[in-house]
């Protein structure tokens, strides 16, 4: 359980650096960066699912703040929709946190694996989006 120690050994820093940078890139591209770190923590380091989820959530916050500032400069963020979706999401987040406390670590890990499998297949076979399709109607 290498993940329990706050003081980490030199060779562990390599894993931390690689997973941290890759997660940061994926997170800021909106590809689900949290997932990269969570995969590293659970599938490679064998952390407890609950602890790994918590690490992942904390990790995401500074990364998200930076990404949002930079994307906002590129005018890629639609604030109105983001706000409305986030407000309804908070209710879901509380429910999700509560339910996660009722489920055993082992099962949470399987649910996560199931979600990864579905989304992974989706990503793998994702189609290229047409560039700015011309609007037919006036």
């Amino acid at each position, binding site marked *: 359980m290498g993940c329990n120690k706050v003081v980490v050994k030199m060779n562990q820093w390599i894993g931390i650096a690689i997973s941290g940078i890759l997660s940061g890139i994926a997170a800021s591209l909106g590809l689900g960066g949290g997932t990269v770190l969570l995969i590293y923590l659970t599938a490679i380091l064998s952390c407890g699912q609950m602890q790994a989820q918590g690490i992942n959530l904390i990790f995401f916050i500074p990364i998200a703040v930076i990404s949002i500032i930079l994307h906002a400069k590129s005018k890629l963020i639609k604030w109105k929709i983001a706000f409305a979706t*986030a407000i309804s999401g908070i209710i879901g987040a509380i429910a999700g946190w509560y339910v996660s406390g009722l489920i055993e670590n082992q099962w949470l890990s399987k649910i996560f694996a199931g979600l990864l499998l579905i989304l992974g297949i989706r990503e793998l076979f994702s189609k290229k989006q047409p560039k700015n399709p011309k609007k037919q109607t006036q």
Partner: protein
Amino acid sequence: MKQSGKQKHIILKYLGGSTVGFINGLLGAGGGMLAVPLLKKLGLETKESHATSIAVILPLSLFSCILYLTSGRVTLGDALPYIPFGIIGALIGAWLMPRISTILLRRIFGGFMIWAAIRLLLK
């Protein structure tokens, strides 16, 4: 926008939003990947959806994070070593976003997710 379309839009926004929040709270991840297709359905372009998904997930993660920390499931120190590297990655990613086609990245990422899923299922 037509009336029925507008209603559908609103339902999708709120129902979709709470599902994204639920998954993010339950699994501590994955909310963003659900938020992207939701935002596309709501009419945003691909890159806008990817960028906006982060703005949707940030408040949700902040909320979930406080719940995880106060219930003692994790400590700040556990996550600390990863953060400086994550910030470097975030800067690279934000620089890349307007410059690249994400399709290849998505394929690579999809393969990686499937590998991880199988590994976790067999554990």
